[in-house]
């Protein structure tokens, strides 16, 4: 990883054009942020609003997936044993209120993250943070943490201004304590958030835009109508249907990459027929992922016929178990498990329309092998509560935003994983995942995760369905905006508008 990130203007097609300064860019997302505190927020929607007000030590590389580059950090070293990180900060960074950003702010911020709890486990291994001088931070870990840089690059692990935090009584829900390319002007919940250019941003010449307006428009049709009517510049997240519609709209460009948002059927391995591996396998064979992709996602998602990791990263191309549906095999497996006539089961879903739709198709598909599915829809809050308490038999949900393979696997498939809702346990998998965490060697790590994936797919605690495309629509006047698998608006700092 090298040098200054500003030279690379991401995926912008027209790199030959010269950037133009000024203008107001309007960008729409599904929902409004809940609050603006980077250390407190958990929803991806909130991130998109917050990240442009803050800087992080590292960042995800524009247009690339899983690659980390420096941001506030000018230079750094990692000790051989992977336990000591020495970071040197840029010396010209100022918070929006004019205070300089120094090593003590970094220390304060990491400590605040730990205190706030939400992402504390990413810093579980931190032993000490030292600040030998104003621009140097030394972080010492108890043991090596392979994805530690990825954690530091998480846009919500931002560096905040201690003075502002304290002025707000420790709360940043409505305030801006950042040093990022834009500063907060106003925020009207569910209407719009207005940001303006940070004139003393530490990256010379950036940002280009004078103003950024975020709008929360939950209805996808309303969003796509608005961008067609040029009331918007960017529609950040398109549904498959809207992508189809907007592909042919004039003056609008749709860009998409394979995203990190993958969806699956969760099977509660602690209950009823699903205790049996054969039954779970049978379901995996009975589901037609391609048909599902066509029906629910207009064929635009990438079916996951192997493990959960989408192509392009720690993906294992050889693991391609379920590329074809096999109902005969499924029926055989059910008969072997003692359910020759199938059984009835409840499939719980939340409010996500794609998942609700998928549930209806899956109900139809499982009928073919004799499994009678009752769909039960709940409100998200009730739904997630039930999942957390393992009060479900089958469910359809998805995960989003993981960058490192450890994030993909440990919390979900490890016996003690925080989000192991399926109740899945496999000693061998546990061991592999623990090993992967502390292995710094990339190649070795890939081997470990390939093996773990194979075991997981065989045990079938989940039926992996597909990884979604991340599609963004923008008017032709928008340049330099990065459509990233992790869905981020971070590249607004180098986005510009042509006339």
């Amino acid at each position, binding site marked *: 990883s090298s040098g200054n990130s500003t030279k690379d203007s991401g995926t912008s097609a027209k790199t030959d054009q010269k950037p133009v300064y000024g203008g107001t860019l309007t960008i729409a997302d599904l929902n409004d942020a809940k609050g603006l505190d980077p250390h407190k927020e958990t929803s991806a929607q909130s991130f998109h609003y917050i990240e442009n007000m803050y800087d992080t030590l590292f960042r995800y590389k524009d247009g690339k997936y899983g690659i980390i580059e420096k941001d506030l950090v000018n230079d750094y070293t990692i000790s051989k044993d992977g336990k000591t990180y020495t970071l040197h900060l840029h010396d010209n960074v100022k918070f929006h209120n004019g205070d300089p950003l120094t090593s003590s702010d970094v220390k304060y911020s990491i400590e605040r993250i730990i205190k706030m709890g939400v992402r504390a486990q990413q810093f579980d291994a931190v032993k000490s943070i030292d600040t030998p001088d104003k621009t140097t931070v030394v972080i010492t870990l108890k043991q090596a943490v392979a994805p530690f840089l990825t954690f530091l690059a998480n846009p919500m692990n931002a560096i905040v201004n201690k003075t502002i935090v304290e002025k707000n009584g420790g709360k940043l829900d409505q305030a801006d304590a950042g040093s990022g390319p834009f500063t907060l002007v106003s925020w009207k919940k569910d209407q719009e958030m207005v940001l303006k250019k940070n004139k003393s941003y530490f990256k010379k010449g950036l940002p280009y835009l004078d103003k950024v307006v975020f709008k929360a428009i939950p209805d996808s*049709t309303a969003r796509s109508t608005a961008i067609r009517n040029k009331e918007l510049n960017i529609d950040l997240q398109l549904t498959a249907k809207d992508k189809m519609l907007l592909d042919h709209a004039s003056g609008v460009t749709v860009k998409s990459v394979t995203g990190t948002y993958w969806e699956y059927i969760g099977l509660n391995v602690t209950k009823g027929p699903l205790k049996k591996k054969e039954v779970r396998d049978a379901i995996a064979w009975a589901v037609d992922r391609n048909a599902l992709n066509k029906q629910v996602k207009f064929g635009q998602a990438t079916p996951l016929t192997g493990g959960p990791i989408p192509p392009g990263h720690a993906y294992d191309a050889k693991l391609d178990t379920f590329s074809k549906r096999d109902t005969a095999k499924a029926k055989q497996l059910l008969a072997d498990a003692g359910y020759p006539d199938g059984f009835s089961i409840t499939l719980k879903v939340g409010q996500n329309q794609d998942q609700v739709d998928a549930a209806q198709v899956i109900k139809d598909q499982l009928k073919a092998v004799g499994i009678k599915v009752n769909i039960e829809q709940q409100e998200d809050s009730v739904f997630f509560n039930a999942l957390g308490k393992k009060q479900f038999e089958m469910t359809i949900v998805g995960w989003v935003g993981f960058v490192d393979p450890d994030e993909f696997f440990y919390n979900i498939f490890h016996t003690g994983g925080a989000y192991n809702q399926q109740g899945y346990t496999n000693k061998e998998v546990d061991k592999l995942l623990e090993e992967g965490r502390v292995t710094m060697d990339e190649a070795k790590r890939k081997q470990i995760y390939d093996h773990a994936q194979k075991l997981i797919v065989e045990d079938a605690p989940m039926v992996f369905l597909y990884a979604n495309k991340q599609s963004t629509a923008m008017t032709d006047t928008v340049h330099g905006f990065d459509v990233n698998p992790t869905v981020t608006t971070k590249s607004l700092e180098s986005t510009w508008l042509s006339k």
Partner: protein
Amino acid sequence: MGKYILHRLIIAVPILIGISILTFFLIRLVPGDTVTAILGTNYDPKLAHKLRSEMGLDQPVILQYLIWIGHVFMGDFGTSSFTGQPVLSALMERLPITLELALLSLVVALIIAIPLGVLAAYKHGTRADYASGTFGMFGISVPNFWLGTLLILIFSLHLHLLPSGGYQPLSKGIGENLRSLLMPVIALGTAVAAVTMRSTRSAMLDVLNEDYIKMAKAKGASNARIIWKHGLRNALVPVMTVVGIQIGYLLGGSVIIEQVFALPGMGRLALQAISNRDYSLLQGTILFVAVTFIMINLIIDVIYGWINPSIRYK
């Protein structure tokens, strides 16, 4: 008059307390809670426990209620557990939008419906009367959210004349503001117009049978004078009662219409609060809606007294 208003306000207090109790305890019957809603996909039992005790959700419910209602009396509705925003400021942000939507719908509906109702009564028994009767019946039967959807389909998606949703505040200019509310107002106001028209018609028919109308005729008053001077104001008395009932419909309907047209009003806030199990926000919203309802009804009663002097209060 002032005394009457005061009297009405005093009567409203027990109702509001009843509502506060009802909502407070009802909401706590709701499965799932704020914390799960906040954590969503990233639900983690340990973290959830920590958040619950921070929010005081582990205390006895009665105590929670007393603390809350005590604060409410001092004008503090608490903060939204979901967004961290003070509930009162969230409500004050939304209230104008819902009020504008509801009142605009009401006013437009009345302006159209009352003359139509009077004409239908005057021409009663004719084809025009039957036509307006059928139209009125459709008006109260068509679901407002469907009407809204159709309007979007036609005027936004096909004709590209109007924005399909979103709210433009008055600060963006009255034209923009009205443009953003045009379809919502039609969707919400149609039923009100229909109901008002029907009740104006039947009230007018009743009034036209009254002795004082015969008396006016016997005095030599012209038909126009009988209808518009002697008839209308009397007919408005029962109509105002119906309008008062419509306020409830308007506030309830705005929950749906705000959802259809993505208007950030109180209805939408309530819906979000419900799905986020945002207790203090939901309590505040419901209480606010009830207060709004009672206040508007009070205003209507005052107008009522102005129309009908025999119930004017000393």
